[in-house]
């Protein structure tokens, strides 16, 4: 399909594959050459093949609707998004730096709170955060690491630089889709992998396993690791089974676990009870243990917090780690990096206005039509106001929400999210906005995925990439071709 890339118009946004003059960016050269050589009917047949593959592989996610839950096939665009390996190396270093600092920060908050005493962050921001858990004060988890698995959302602005949009330190999901996207692309566009130097993504699960193993409280050669899922109705259930399967560990639900009077955790097996050392939990803090949090939660395990507090079991991520992914705390991350590491942040934050601050609030209220307003503690793109796409009525609603509870809101300028060519109707390629979620692990060592999960807003002009709200995804290539 010979595309006239001069006519491809990203509308002034930074495009991942095509530069402003219609030229192809170096990491995408082989890819575009290959696409150009395929006739349109061939591209269409590859697209259908991808669809069939996704159905057969059963790659799905669950959507909640009024009538219950639906299992939907994963929406996927076959055109990969490319990033040069040299740019990725810098970005990865920035992500590691960020997670290290955040872990020092969380550990400090639950011990001496030196950063609050030094006045770097106002104490009330932390103490009023609904993700600060008094139950965690004074606890020292293995290696003093709290957030072992982090999914950080990156966006590229008009200047082509990566910015951090948010850190997800509670139960970030999406890594299985990153791996499946690659598996699908290998089947659909196999010829590309022969010509191009695309770095592999496959070692994530092995890295995750080793990291979890390093947390074991018992010094045994083969600690027992499990993945704790809220169950089949969770939107990320597919991922939970995927990870358990890839790591070769048991996938358990709360009802499979039991804590005894000595605060040890066991799972119910065909030969009786078996001790558990490390739990990769995919359940929110508040549902972990009905003895401590939500009393009528049936997802969790009574006594799990006691077991964790006594150091009899490791939880990843540790309870309370979410205090650092509050969107108000986010605004302070550059300061946090300087404070703990004495380094300049490698990746920048997106400019952020805190509604709690009277001056900044006034600015936000005056510019609601230009800004994106986010609640401090929601995820999945819920409860947001995208100013330029909003009605006067919605803006008025948000003005009231902000005035009633300023601590709970932040605002950011509407970003000029970068685009990439995406297959739309009749085999045409059009620019669509996207972001990137790499995953970072920290145990004894740190590790960053090669690339990450690229999410695409499939609707023309839309900036919302969440799969629960009509977003799709693409394979992400870190390309080393043409480098030293």
């Amino acid at each position, binding site marked *: 399909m010979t595309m006239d890339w001069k006519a491809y118009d990203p509308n002034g946004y930074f495009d991942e594959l095509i530069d402003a003059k219609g030229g192809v960016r170096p990491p995408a050269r082989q890819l575009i050459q290959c696409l150009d050589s395929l006739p349109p009917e061939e591209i269409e047949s590859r697209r259908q093949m991808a669809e069939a593959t996704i*159905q057969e592989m059963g790659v799905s996610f669950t959507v909640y609707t009024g009538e219950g839950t639906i299992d939907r096939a994963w929406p996927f665009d076959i055109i990969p998004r490319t990033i040069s390996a040299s740019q990725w190396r810098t970005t990865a270093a920035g992500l590691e730096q960020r997670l290290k600092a955040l872990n020092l920060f969380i550990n400090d908050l639950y011990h001496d709170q030196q950063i609050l005493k030094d006045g770097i962050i106002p104490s009330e921001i932390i103490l009023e955060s609904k993700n600060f858990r008094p139950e965690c004060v004074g606890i020292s988890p293995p290696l003093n690491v709290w957030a072992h698995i982090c999914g950080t959302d990156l966006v590229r602005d008009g200047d082509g630089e990566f910015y951090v949009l948010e850190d997800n330190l509670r139960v970030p999901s999406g890594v299985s889709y990153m791996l499946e996207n690659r598996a699908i692309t290998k089947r659909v566009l196999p010829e590309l992998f022969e010509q191009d130097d695309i770095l592999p993504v496959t070692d994530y699960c092995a890295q995750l396993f080793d990291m979890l193993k390093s947390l074991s409280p018992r010094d045994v050669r083969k600690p027992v690791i499990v993945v704790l899922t809220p169950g089949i109705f969770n939107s990320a259930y597919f991922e939970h089974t995927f990870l358990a399967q890839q790591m070769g560990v048991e996938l358990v639900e709360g009802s*499979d676990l039991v804590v005894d009077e000595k605060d040890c955790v066991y799972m119910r097996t065909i030969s009786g009870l078996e001790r558990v050392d490390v739990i990769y939990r995919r359940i929110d803090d508040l549902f972990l243990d009905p003895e401590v949090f939500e009393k009528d939660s049936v997802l969790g395990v009574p006594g799990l917090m006691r077991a964790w507090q006594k150091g009899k079991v490791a939880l990843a991520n540790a309870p309370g780690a979410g205090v650092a992914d509050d969107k108000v705390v986010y605004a302070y991350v550059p300061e946090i990096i300087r404070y703990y590491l004495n380094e300049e942040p490698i990746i920048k934050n997106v400019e952020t206005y805190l509604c709690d601050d009277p001056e900044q609030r006034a600015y936000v209220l005056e510019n609601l039509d230009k800004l994106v307003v986010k609640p401090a503690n929601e995820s999945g793109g819920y409860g947001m106001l995208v100013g330029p796409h909003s009605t006067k009525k919605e803006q008025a609603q948000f003005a009231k929400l902000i005035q009633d509870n300023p601590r709970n809101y932040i605002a950011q300028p509407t970003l000029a999210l970068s685009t990439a060519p995406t297959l739309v109707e009749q085999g045409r390629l059009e620019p669509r906005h996207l972001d990137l979620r790499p995953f970072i692990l920290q145990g004894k060592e740190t590790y960053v995925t090669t690339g990450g999960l690229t999410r695409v807003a499939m609707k023309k002009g839309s900036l919302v990439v969440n799969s629960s709200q009509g977003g799709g995804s693409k394979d992400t290539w870190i390309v080393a071709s043409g480098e030293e």
Partner: protein
Amino acid sequence: MLSKVAERLYWAARYLERVENTARLVGVYDKLLFDLPRDVNISWYSLVELNSATGPFEERYQVRSEHNVVKFMLADDTNPSSMLTALSMLRENIRTSRDVLPVESWEHINELYLYAQNNIRLGINRSQRHEFLDQIVCRCQMFFGMLSGTMSHDAPWQFVKLGRDLERADMTTRILDAGAAALQQANGDSSVNLRQVVWGNVLRSASAYMSYRRSVRLSVAGPDVAWYLLQDPNFPRSVAACLTQLKISAGKLPHSKALVDEVKEIDLERYQIETDADLGRDFRSYLNDLQIQICQLSNRIAQTWFPA
């Protein structure tokens, strides 16, 4: 191994075997259509009766026609033991056990599921039913073969085998029952030829025709067919062979003594079959007793390894 996972695998294997054997069961009657003189009527409704599903059938249909019975057996979601119901239960169990199964399982089961869903009309209408049923049987066997060839033969595998052999033993008694029922219905005209046709097709539906000829070395006759499918120690779908396998699999799991003892108590020689006259109502009630005993084995399995 988690009790819950063991339970799911056990049931996944049962459903897999049920899907395959429901196709075989419908196949018994389907094959008869080709071979019987047109004036002999076979009652399709027997298939519903021998699956103890008359209640749900009556709720749904007024006419006991071939079309309705086949639709009920293969496609109905109101029938808890229809092929498609079993298939979606199978898929659900595989979906929730993916962490202990070979990676290919989920993909394989999706292919089977999509094939059955998309082609179910072929099964309901007569013209291509045979091909459709063959495909189902074949794809089920491929799935099991894949598990057998790639799954570590440790505890999870033993639960797969327990489920398979228990369900298979049960379904073999039903396939025999289908033959007995067809002859009972066709009463009055049960010439030697008709019996041969029916029992021959029972064997074919159990993929047992060739091995029967070779190991029994007699022409096809009801009493010998019944003996073969109940008691032959070597044919993998005979009830005796399934029970032997149950003992072997159980023996590799902890706390299995009670189950093994119960399997040993099942006496396949209790009911004596000497002539075709022994394959009537008493035979069918004997098969029913066997099904009850098999069901008790399943209860024992649940008590032993999946206590609530």
